[in-house]
């Protein structure tokens, strides 16, 4: 409809929208320049007419500084409803005490735009209305210029800027890229906000399905130490996730689910829809009290959500998401909102880019089969593969080891004994993979030291076979090993009556058990191809042993992708 029928001007200077509602036929939207021109034309009239009290005998209503900056003079004013029907201009009124600034979003049509202002979502997102007759949401689009919506945002009221005129525009739609653009302070005129709104090909699972993946959990909320690259040195992250039974690609979709528009999840005390990740790394000193693992924090001039702190009582660093105001500065006091603990900023505050700035969700980017993690985002080591990457809190890129799996198939549960051990290069079992460093003679031996370096592809837990004085090998489960001291920690075993001599042979039984399923497997960190000796044996069932099978022996290879073999069963009856 025309601006003449959409707006009225009262004798007191109230400029109000009187047209159809958003989304209805005839709903009107006008630029600020159009409002100015209409009022100025009215102001030239000889006398007021209709519902518009404006003529030569009324004060000048507006002043145009540029086509995009309109000041309402004197008592002339618009209200929030009228502002919803204006765009592409700043409206200044009440002598500058009230200001609406223009926002113009550059994104694909239909992008649902959320605005986070003063730490909260702007509830009245009228700009996402689907205009009458259109199929895409977004008021005042301009497809030719790539504009999906234009609207006014109130940034100053009662003579005070709303959070310094700062806001974040974001889009977090299911199946689409998560993107944001932060405006550190609006300018008069049009504030252009680019967002990335594209289908995310790695996020196409139905929402209802992703909703059921509740075995993906955040094990640690806060500072977490993870040895993601298996170098025996932990790295620090701001949390530790467990992907449960899901693939890394499903994990990525679940994180997007938890941080999508409309999410009811809570992450680090924040609604998932508002969760962005670390925005600042803060050096601190002079701590008092005990901080929580994560909590709301505040300082003069701002508030934030602390996501991690390297010590609750003796912190030297904390990591936070800025919520309102500006980041703290040197010597400012940071106070825990729940704990009441305090610390001082120690000079350095480092700004970190949130992943949404690059159209990635909080966890980082998915390749479909791997995750390229966001800054500080931690996943437990066992859930990472060779193609994943994580970034610790020092911003180092961590490459997980290649954990591969070797599988033996064709087994009969309860019958077959399966042995997979090192191959000696001649097609046989290498029973001297290690040699003992010291004889074993005690009645409760739990520690076995070998002379040789324990290879990196040794499973974290498994079986160690040791040659006894009697000539046979005994089977000893180990729960850990120390590569530095070349020591295996075994279940307590009695070597008092049949010991093992110094220098006696020992080897790892990568699989060393009675089959309890049709397959058996082991996982190890791949470092180089390893030749394996595989033996399957079933001597038959007493008393006749007519079902006995010939021993199956073969050589296999544990490679970068693991490996597999299917055992053969030939009757030995």
């Amino acid at each position, binding site marked *: 409809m025309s601006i003449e029928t959409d707006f009225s001007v009262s004798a007191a200077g109230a400029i109000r929208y009187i047209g159809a509602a958003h989304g209805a036929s005839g709903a009107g939207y006008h630029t600020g320049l159009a409002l100015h021109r209409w009022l100025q034309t009215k*102001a*030239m009239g000889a006398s007021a007419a209709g519902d518009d009290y404006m003529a030569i005998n009324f004060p000048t209503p507006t002043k145009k500084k540029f086509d995009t900056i309109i000041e309402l003079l004197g008592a002339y004013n618009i209200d929030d409803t009228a502002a919803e029907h204006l765009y592409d201009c700043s409206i200044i009124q009440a002598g500058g005490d009230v200001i609406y600034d223009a926002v113009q979003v550059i994104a694909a049509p239909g992008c649902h735009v959320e605005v986070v202002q003063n730490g909260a979502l702007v509830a009245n997102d009228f700009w996402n209305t689907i205009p009458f007759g259109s199929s895409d949401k977004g008021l005042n689009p301009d497809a030719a210029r790539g504009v999906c919506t234009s609207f006014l945002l109130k940034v100053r009221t009662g003579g005070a800027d709303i959070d310094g005129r700062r806001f974040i525009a974001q889009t977090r739609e299911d199946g689409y890229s998560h993107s944001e653009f932060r405006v550190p302070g609006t300018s008069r005129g049009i504030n252009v906000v680019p967002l990335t709104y594209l289908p995310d090909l790695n996020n196409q699972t139905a929402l209802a399905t992703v909703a059921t993946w509740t075995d993906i959990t955040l094990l640690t909320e806060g500072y977490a130490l993870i040895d993601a690259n298996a170098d025996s040195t932990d790295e620090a992250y701001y949390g530790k996730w467990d992907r449960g039974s899901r693939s890394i690609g499903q994990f990525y979709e679940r994180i997007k689910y938890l941080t999508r528009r409309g999410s009811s999840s809570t992450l680090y005390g924040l609604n998932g829809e508002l969760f962005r990740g670390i925005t600042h790394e803060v050096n601190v000193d002079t701590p008092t009290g005990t901080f929580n693992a994560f909590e709301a924090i505040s300082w003069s001039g701002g508030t934030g959500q602390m996501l991690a702190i390297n010590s609750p009582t003796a912190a030297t660093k904390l990591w936070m998401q800025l919520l309102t105001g500006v980041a703290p500065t040197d010597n400012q006091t940071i106070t825990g909102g729940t704990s009441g603990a305090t610390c001082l900023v120690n000079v350095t505050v480092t700004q970190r880019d949130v992943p949404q700035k690059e159209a990635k969700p909080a966890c980082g980017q998915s390749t479909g089969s791997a995750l390229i993690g966001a800054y500080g985002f931690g996943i437990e080591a066992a859930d990472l593969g060779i193609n994943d990457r994580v970034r610790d809190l020092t911003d180092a890129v961590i490459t997980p080891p290649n954990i591969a799996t070797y599988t033996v198939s064709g087994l009969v549960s309860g019958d077959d004994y399966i042995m997979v051990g090192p191959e000696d290069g001649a097609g046989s079992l290498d029973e001297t993979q290690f040699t003992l460093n010291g004889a074993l003679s005690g009645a409760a031996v739990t520690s076995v030291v070998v002379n040789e370096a324990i290879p990196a592809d040794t499973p974290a837990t498994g079986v160690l076979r040791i040659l006894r004085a009697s000539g046979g090998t005994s089977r000893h489960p180990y729960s850990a090993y120390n590569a530095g001291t070349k020591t295996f920690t075994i279940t307590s075993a009695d070597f008092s009556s049949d010991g093992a001599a110094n220098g006696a042979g020992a080897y790892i039984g990568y699989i060393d058990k009675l089959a309890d399923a049709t397959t058996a497997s082991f996982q190890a960190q791949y470092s180089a191809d390893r030749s394996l000796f595989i033996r399957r044996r079933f001597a038959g069932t007493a008393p006749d042993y007519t079902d006995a099978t010939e021993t199956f022996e073969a050589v296999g290879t544990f490679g970068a992708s693991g490996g597999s073999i299917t055992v053969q069963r030939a009757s030995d009856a």
Partner: protein
Amino acid sequence: MSVCIRYGTRVICGIGTARSFRGWPAVALQRLPTDPLFYATLTLRNILAGSRYRVTRSDTGDELAAGVTAGTGNVDEVISGVACFANPQEVDITVRLFDEGDADPDYESFETRAFIARAGGEAYILQRED
């Protein structure tokens, strides 16, 4: 305002200006407090033709004159018979030329003040394109 003239041996008073009784000596002038002190001419110089103007008393806001300038281009608009209630009379002048409906340039509202004495007054109008 009323004027009293001596007509022969009589004094006659009537409403009107002294001019109305030309030829007869005025012996007194009587005016109400609300009557103008005098009427004078206000000239708006350099005003764009087509502009609407309005002249009001600075002290009360009462309208003294209004109209639309004729002609083309920049003209001088002579406004005669502007009632003045003080000597000099301070007036507010508003000039507007804005029509979104045509292709002609539009101008910012121009407001100024001027003083009108018995001999007249003038104001220079400087309209800036909007």
